[in-house]
């Protein structure tokens, strides 16, 4: 069943929290507009790990060249939805 953007945002936040072992935040309270690199402190290897989990979860491929653009949960969710829609 297709997910809404809000559902995608929650799931991505959950993945990031799990992979980075973030504390004191839940998927519901994670600000989707936080800058993952400058404000959360994610670096390229963390992002590659998250990209692999997202690949598993959503069945999409994330191009390495796109990493620099994936700077927030909201941007990632739109990226994923665009990928899913373009494959339909």
């Amino acid at each position: 069943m297709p997910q809404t953007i809000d559902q995608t945002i929650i799931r991505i936040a959950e993945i990031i929290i799990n992979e980075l072992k973030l504390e004191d935040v839940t998927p519901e309270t994670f600000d989707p507009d936080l800058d993952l690199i400058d404000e959360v402190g994610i670096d390229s290897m963390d992002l590659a790990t998250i990209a692999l989990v997202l690949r598993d979860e959503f069945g999409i491929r994330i191009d390495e060249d796109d990493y620099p653009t994936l700077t927030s949960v909201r941007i990632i969710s739109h990226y994923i939805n665009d990928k899913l829609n373009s494959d339909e």
Partner: protein
Amino acid sequence: MTAPQPEYKFAEIIADPLIRERWEKVRQYFFLRESTYDMTNRCNIRCEGCYYFSGEKQFARENRSQADWRTLLEGEKQRGITFVVLAGAEPSLVPELCAVCHQVIPLGAIATNGIRPIPREIDYRIHISVWGNDRSSERIRKAPDMLVRQLVNYREDPRALFVYTFTPDNIGEAREVSRILADNGQQLTFNMFSAPVGYSGPLRHSRESLLRTREMMSELLEEYPQNVLFSPYNIVAHTAEQSLHQLFSCSYPRQNPSAAIGLGKSFRQYRTDLQWDRQAACCVPDTDCSDCRHYAAGSAVVTARMYRHATDPVTFSAWLDYMDTYLAVWVTGYPKGATLCPTYINPPAGKERP
């Protein structure tokens, strides 16, 4: 054209207990963020094909102020640098500056020719360069008895790692040098001569010398598994006809226009005047990128391409071997594990380009 979808999910790949164990081991070091620093514009030898004495950086004015270096390193720490590489021209000539770096950022490595010992309290990995046996060293580096002196200076020193640079002329000598190092209980890893921009001398590798080097590396890895820090995938990546940049698309600023994340965002290569230039920033500045097979470059360039290696258990195992080797080479005390992928695999292609 769309890239083919992977056959394996990542979760399936890391479900293998050996792979999962290694994955959990190496990912603890994802926090490493490096920059490199030329410590002085002086060297006590002058080697043919030296990276330092190519290009503009050799003319930078030397800053020997410990206070200025401390300020620089504290700023580096503030912007997230967790690992320093002290190189050009010869850091052992300025141990007081190396000590300042170590006091501020405790993880790092020093590239040295090994002629002068670096004080023990500077607990960085010490990479000691070897360019063949002592007869070849005298010819190429114009310095006698280098290996003898290096072994004396770094006897039973856990920081020490000998870095054997293969040129077309010294491939056979690696057998003799490796035996001497193993007999002395030393560890070694392999580097490939990578031509500086404009270099057309005899040290540039050819298809034939790459193949001979591959065979020699394989032989030595098999013969001295406790001493040689390398893996079959390291061999493939560093002896391929294509350069590291051509295989993996180098992520250092010099070849990477994005300053958003990773090396493109954080890496700087400081000259000895404490200035840096994004256009020149990579681990071996002034190297010809189309000939770059340098071990330091691979340590960042191959490891950064994790995503493209996560296609199946074998390919990901090869990447883990490379990652494990990289950490053992650069981080003091990191124990290298057994090889997970003993066969040669082709480096996976990245995004298809028009």
